[in-house]
């Protein structure tokens, strides 16, 4: 069937199609949105939903086709580069051609993005059904898919940066989708600004890369930012490697919401839930990890940078996990869990286990998307209610959502058969194996906390007695089928996702590691030594038990004994309040950065420096001085003719006197 497909279209054009389909969808929907700006949607709703869902599906199909063809390439490196569509900016030193690079890593990402994307598109048909901005929503969502695919499939850093910022733009638009509400609009701006700070670092990294490539007197004609060229000349990167990787990692922190720049993600929940699912769980936030893995040959050059990545990752994981414990808004809980899972990925990348990071990325996409979608259907059902405290025993009315949520919870907690177990275990084991025991410990604790808070949510929302007001309880009902189907598919994926990463020790062939091995130069240099096998089994068992312990604990407390946590909270009230308010990080940022910046630019720069000094003193000051001086001089004019003559005569005398001397 495939080769008949290839008669029709070459693999390069197929690659372009992956990107072209979402763009086409975005364009059509945008036109419809503008067209029906004021008028009622009516018939167009069907057209929009058709294009909205079908085109991403086509993109998924195309990437699947390419993936299949690549898998049956034995031995030979199946990756290829599509020719440059157009030379973007041709100056003597800067040749940037827009082309796609399909290799093992990017096709995996493409598959994940289009797959989860399509499911979420299908889901949002139901979720956003009655919203009047329907066409605009789908246009922005498709545009997001387009930019994400550009980011993932780009063959050079500049194009990746284009995707990088494009994705930021779409997240801004989608978070602030319901722009009537001031808080939501502010959240959108906050997201974009924080991303932009990260992009600043990314840009600096870019320039450094350019500097290095230029000095490596690579042939001028070739693209300095091309991954191929960069990997070929990475010997020249040695001196600047640390700085470049740190700067690029700065960009990643901004985009993937790591420690200093994570504040925007919890606020990003203001957007519609499918958006959170797609952007703030599965795809955009993982862009940082993808970038680090893509440029692993640079990061590998500087162990210091890698250790920084690892520590930041681990710290974020633990920090976010603790914050997840006390959240009451269901979407906020999931946001913090995303941050902590991302922390895991970066920890993996930091320690050099790039394939494990990718593995966790993929599995995380599945179960985190599922969690968000379930939350979405709960909110949809509860008509906008997001606080878990006034939910409970929803399992009676929404069985499918409940059980899919539980499966996802198991996966994230890392319980045996689910995919989460394999990917998280791989990370923890690789960290342990590489001797990073400190990091392993942090990871270990974070895993426990994750299990606890997720099952706290499960207990509060689905089990235990319901504290939903009666009139709302009547209207609670299971979500429509268009929302249920994606849940079920994702549930399967969460369960079976782990298969790609079954470690050798358990008889699996660690397909993902093998698949990516050609790209990850670092890993090959670090082959696993057989003596550690036994220890690996022990570690795996310990982590499994640890997670199960917390799962039971969480479920029991929040399903049956709700009063216990309040008691505990009262005892350690100070710590509890600290954690509940997210360590006051937002307030600190506001106090330390936003307010002083405002004050400086208003008071110091604008009022004093600009208005009083330059404008007041220099400009109007001179004008006033001239006025004053003019008055003084006019005093001499008395009006009496004789005096003028006197001045005249005295002047003459003085001159003549001078001359006569």
């Amino acid at each position: 069937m495939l080769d008949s497909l290839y008669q029709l279209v070459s693999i390069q054009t197929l690659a372009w199609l992956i990107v072209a389909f979402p763009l086409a969808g975005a364009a059509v929907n945008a036109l419809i949105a503008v067209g029906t700006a004021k008028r009622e949607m009516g018939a167009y709703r069907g057209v929009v939903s058709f294009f909205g869902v079908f085109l991403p599906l086509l993109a998924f199909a195309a990437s699947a086709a390419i993936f299949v063809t690549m898998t049956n390439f034995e031995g030979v490196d199946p990756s290829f580069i599509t020719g440059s569509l157009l030379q973007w900016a041709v100056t003597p030193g800067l040749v940037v051609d827009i082309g796609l690079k399909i290799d093992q890593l990017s096709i995996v990402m493409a598959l994940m993005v289009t797959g989860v994307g399509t499911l979420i598109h299908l889901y949002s048909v139901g979720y956003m059904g009655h919203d009047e901005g329907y066409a605009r929503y789908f246009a922005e969502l498709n545009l997001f898919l387009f930019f994400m695919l550009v980011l993932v499939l780009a063959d050079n850093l500049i194009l990746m940066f284009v995707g990088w910022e494009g994705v930021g733009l779409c997240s801004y638009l989608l978070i602030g989708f319901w722009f009537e509400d001031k808080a939501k609009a502010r959240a959108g701006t906050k997201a974009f600004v924080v991303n932009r700070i990260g992009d600043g670092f990314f840009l600096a990294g870019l320039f450094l890369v350019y500097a290095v490539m230029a000095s490596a007197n690579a042939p001028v004609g070739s693209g300095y930012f091309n991954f191929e060229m960069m990997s070929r000349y990475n010997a020249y990167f040695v001196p600047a490697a640390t700085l470049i990787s740190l700067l690029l990692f700065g960009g990643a922190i901004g985009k993937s919401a790591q420690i200093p720049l994570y504040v925007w993600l919890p606020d990003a929940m203001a957007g519609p839930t499918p958006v959170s699912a797609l952007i703030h769980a599965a795809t955009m936030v993982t862009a940082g990890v993808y970038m680090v893995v893509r440029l692993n040959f640079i990061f590998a050059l500087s162990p210091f940078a890698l250790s920084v990545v690892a520590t930041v990752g681990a710290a974020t994981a633990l920090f976010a996990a603790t914050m997840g414990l006390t959240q009451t808004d269901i979407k906020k809980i999931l946001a913090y869990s995303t941050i902590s899972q991302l922390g895991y990925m970066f920890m993996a990348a930091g320690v050099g286990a790039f394939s494990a990071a990718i593995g966790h990325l993929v599995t995380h996409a599945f179960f985190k998307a599922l969690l968000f979608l379930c939350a979405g259907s709960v909110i949809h059902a509860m008509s906008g209610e997001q606080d878990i405290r006034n939910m409970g025993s929803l399992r009676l009315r929404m069985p499918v959502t409940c059980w899919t949520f539980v499966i996802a919870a198991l996966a994230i907690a890392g319980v045996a058969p689910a995919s989460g177990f394999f990917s998280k275990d791989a990370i923890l084991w690789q960290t342990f194996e590489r001797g990073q025991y400190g990091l392993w410990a942090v990871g270990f604790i974070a895993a426990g906390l994750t299990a606890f808070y997720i099952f706290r949510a499960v207990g509060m929302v689905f089990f235990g007695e319901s504290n939903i007001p009666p009139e709302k309880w009547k209207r609670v009902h299971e979500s429509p089928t268009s929302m249920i189907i994606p849940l079920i598919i994702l549930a399967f994926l969460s369960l079976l996702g782990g298969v790609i990463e079954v470690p050798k020790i358990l008889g699996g062939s660690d397909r993902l590691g093998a698949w990516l091995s050609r790209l990850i130069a670092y890993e090959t240099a670090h082959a696993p030594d057989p003596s550690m096998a036994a220890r690996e089994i022990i570690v795996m068992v310990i982590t499994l038990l640890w997670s199960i312990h917390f799962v039971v604990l969480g479920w029991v407390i929040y399903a049956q004994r709700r009063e216990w946590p309040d008691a505990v909270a009262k005892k350690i009230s100070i710590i509890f309040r600290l954690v509940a308010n997210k360590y006051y990080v937002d307030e600190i940022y506001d106090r330390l950065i936003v307010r002083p910046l405002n004050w400086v630019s208003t008071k110091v720069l604008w009022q004093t420096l600009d208005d009083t000094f330059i404008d007041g003193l220099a400009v109007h000051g001179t004008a006033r001085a001239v006025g004053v001086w003019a008055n003084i001089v006019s005093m001499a004019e008395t009006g009496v003719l004789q005096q003028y003559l006197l001045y005249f005569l005295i002047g003459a005398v003085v001159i003549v006197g001078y001359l006569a001397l």
Partner: protein
Amino acid sequence: MIITVHHYLVLSILLFTIGAIGVVTRRNALIIFMSIELMLNAVNIAFLAFARWNLLIEGKMIVLFVLAVAAAEAAVGLGIVISIYRNRQTVYVDEMRLLKG
């Protein structure tokens, strides 16, 4: 005792100074005008003296122009004095302080 150009210069200076004193000291506008005419005459003497001693026609030309200008000045000056007199009933310069600065 031959007359030299310096005699004429001294005469001219004398007349000029008398004119100047007249202009500065007198209060009556008309007297001031007359003193100015006097000063102009003094200048003419000097011009013609130099013209005569250097045999240059230019001296005479300038004197001609000075004469014409003096005539014009007198005409307009007197016009002004008359109009001031008509409005202020005074010809004394120190009472005309209208244009104070």
